[in-house]
């Protein structure tokens, strides 16, 4: 699973310029943080379970990362005769 690499946003008149945001530049921050959180959840969940808490902590944390990755390929494109709003996550 790979998190989004590029986000394209264009709001305004047709034929105008859009903005490409290089989200992959944040990968060095996102990937280690996600790995740390998942690892931490994996360790703390069994401990918390002993006290009757922390159920689904690991599943939820991995789900959070999966949701971030699932935003890849999302595309929203709305336009009328004059203006356009376009969001693409690649």
């Amino acid at each position, binding site marked *: 699973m790979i998190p989004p690499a590029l986000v394209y946003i264009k709001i305004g*008149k*047709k*034929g105008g310029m859009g903005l490409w945001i290089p989200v992959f530049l944040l990968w060095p921050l996102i990937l280690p943080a996600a790995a740390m959180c998942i690892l931490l959840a994996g360790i703390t969940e069994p401990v918390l379970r002993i006290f009757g808490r922390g*159920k*689904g*902590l690991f*599943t*939820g*944390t*991995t*789900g*959070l990362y*999966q*949701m971030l*990755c*699932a*935003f*890849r*390929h*999302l*595309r*929203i*494109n*709305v*336009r*009328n*005769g*004059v203006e356009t709003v376009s969001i693409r996550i690649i």
Partner: protein
Amino acid sequence: MSDEVERIVDMLEQGKISAGDAKKLIMAIKGIHDGPLPPLPPIPPAPYFRAGGPGRAKFLKVEVRNGDDSVDVRIPLDLIRAGMKLKSLVPSQVMENVTSQLKDKGINVDLDGLKKEDMDSVIDALSDLKVDITDGSKGTVRVFVTDQP
């Protein structure tokens, strides 16, 4: 105002062109599409989706065309699958509250009892979804699931 637009305004003032022609010329200069958009391409044939298989449903597409207006939305179905996992982070008291609130509004769904497998079955069943409404020249609404980006 650009030179081209100024010239068009001059021509309009001199009565050489009509207001409609001026509008068309300005839109052409600015690259603004006038008139209805081209028709939507045909819906790709639904592949055989298998639960968890390589050809499983990947995207929910919503396409709306109405003259100059159009909406194209492509939602990855993995968002729903991942969202189901997030359910486990919600405290059970909150889940009970939401369920009771929904029940008050006439929606009888037990969110706490909703399993990932159930949601997978729903998503796999979505592969048969195909809504195609065309109202003559007025517009088209299409909702379908595909494995093609």
